[in-house]
């Protein structure tokens, strides 16, 4: 269970960043007063364009960033006060955070298992399962730096799940993956949901959001502008499909076309 309650995240911009973004303001509102709930046994899809605020939201959930305003609780633990407990209950996958390339997937798996306080037997059992699902056994002893992008992503996914967490937070998990591997990942996410886990996934790919999510939250410029099942969002916007609905929402909430 993830409960996000009126989350606002404002970045302070350095002089250099202000120049890059060509802005005179020294802050950037990345997430603006977002509330949402992701429940056990469902996949919540966070849909938004580049820069919408998806990664920022998920990083706040994963305790890496502190909310400027609002609270987040994961499995009943507050992300600020009980960070360690939250981290023990989640799997967090994001592009910017990587496994140490000097080690093998096998070692990284064991390493994080140990950090989660698992026994060696537990780790081995878990490894059998996950390495089979993602076909990692063929390259489990190779250094991560020698792996292809897809292999790295598979390893990262397996490692993030080592401790069999209740909550799975995946930020664009299929980026860089071929369709076979991508299907592999989304199928496993469905499997996790069916096991009763809470899954939240961000994406900017309409078809993925459509097929994968039980409920979708649409974020535009840091604001949550729509939420519901696929059919709810389509009918709310009198659209033909999700893409159509998204463009309608986008022109409504982003009039200047920024």
């Amino acid at each position, binding site marked *: 269970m993830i409960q996000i309650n009126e989350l606002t995240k404002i*970045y*302070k911009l350095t002089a250099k960043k202000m120049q890059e973004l060509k802005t005179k303001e020294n802050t950037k509102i990345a997430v603006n007063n977002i509330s949402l709930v992701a429940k056990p046994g469902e996949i919540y899809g966070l849909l938004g364009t580049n820069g919408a605020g998806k990664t920022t939201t998920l*990083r706040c959930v*994963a305790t*890496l*960033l*502190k909310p400027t305003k609002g609270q987040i609780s994961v499995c009943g633990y507050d992300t600020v006060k009980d960070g*360690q*407990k939250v*981290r*023990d209950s989640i799997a*967090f996958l994001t592009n*910017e*955070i*990587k*496994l*140490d*390339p*000097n*080690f093998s997937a096998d*070692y990284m798996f064991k*390493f*994080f298992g*140990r*950090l*989660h*306080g698992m026994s060696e037997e537990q780790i081995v059992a878990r490894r059998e399962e996950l390495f089979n699902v993602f076909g990692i056994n063929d390259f489990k002893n190779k250094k991560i730096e020698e792996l292809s992008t897809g292999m790295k992503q598979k390893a990262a996914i397996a490692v993030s799940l080592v401790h069999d967490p209740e909550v799975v937070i995946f930020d664009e998990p299929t980026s860089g993956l071929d369709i076979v591997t991508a299907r592999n990942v989304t199928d496993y996410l469905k499997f996790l949901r069916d096991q009763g886990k809470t899954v939240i996934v961000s994406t900017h790919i309409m078809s993925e959001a459509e097929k994968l999510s039980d409920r979708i939250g649409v974020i535009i410029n840091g604001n949550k502008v729509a939420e519901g099942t696929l059919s709810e969002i389509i009918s709310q916007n009198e659209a033909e499909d999700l893409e159509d609905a998204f463009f309608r929402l986008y022109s409504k909430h982003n009039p200047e076309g920024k």
Partner: protein
Amino acid sequence: MNGTVIILKKELKRVFGDKKLVFSLFILPAIIMVALYGIMGFMMGKMSDDIEEHRNSVYVVNATEGFKNIISATGYDKNNDVIYLSEEEYRAAAKLDDDLAKKEDAIKTEEDFLNYQVKNNMVQLVVYFEKDFSKKYDSYTKSGDQIPSINLYYNPTENYSTNTYGVFTASIMNTYQSSLLKNRLEKEKIDMESLNVFNVVETTVAKEAKEKGKFISMMLPYMMVIMLFAGAMSVGVDAIAGEKERGTLASMLLSPVNRGQIVGGKIISLMILSGLSAIVYVVSMMVAMPVMKALGGESADMAQGLGNLELSLVQGLQLVAIMLTLVFLFVALIAFLAVRAKDVKTASTYISPVYIVVMVAGMLTMFMSGDKVPTYRYAIPVYGSAVAVKDLCVNELTAVNFLASLSGALILAVIFTVLITKSFNDERVMFNA
């Protein structure tokens, strides 16, 4: 397993599991050090052999028979060209060389000619006996009478010339002077022996350890400081700033382990690695010095000084304790700067000025006079440790000063460790947020 231990193991595996890294961190520096000192010794040896074996030319103008005898008695003229010239020959040589006189405006007098010859390495030394040398010597009867002189011309900027001059002043001229003195005294019926009114017997009063440790007490603190720092730098920058740049540090922040334990694992592993690299430096230096001496012979004598460190067990432990606190301090300092930097390059620019400050702190002890250093100064991090090691070498480190030097470095190291942990908890530092 505790988070610190797990991370510590991983960090050590990262280095020792990588043959290339082991080679570049530990083996290459050792090879370079031994090779460098070997080459240095070889060059020094070659240079001094060359100087000794070089066939020098010496002009002796107006030489007396006695002087000639002494030259041949020493055998100096066997390996060198000693050319005897009479006053006339020498003047003729100076005049004959008209071309030379024209070319070199400066050559006006005969003396200019001598200077010119020496300056241009045509001869290494000119020994010029005053024209009436023997006459003046013979006619001396009482004090106030004129005494004759011998002029030596040599070039102090030239190794061969300086060496030849050295040989002449140190032995040949002395021998000649004593022989003339003896003749004169015999004429006066005075026994040469009676001129020795007393003997001077010298006894050095310094403690033995101090005398022996003097050279090493000058070098060791400085070398220890820079080597420990270099060791910490070679492993610390990549382990922190490199991991941050590659996005792998953040993956550890996602683990349910207390950030303090993560920092602990990092710091301890870096201490082990940089301590090891410091040991490699020290051992390879101990190997390199004899190599240098073997290749360089007597001229590479500074190697001897390093073998002179004799420490008792307690002193050895004290040295280890001081080095450990220094390693801790350097690792914490470098890790702190590295964690504040956004990438490896920035980290290096932060660290370079600090390296210079540390080097100067070590260097200050090299030229310290014998004055007593007040205890509070031992508490100055780095500098205090260097002074303490210096004292240790000459057996003068007091317990109070030892503890002051330990606490100074330790307190600062702990402060940096706390700051690192704070930084690990700071999203602005870890995620540029």
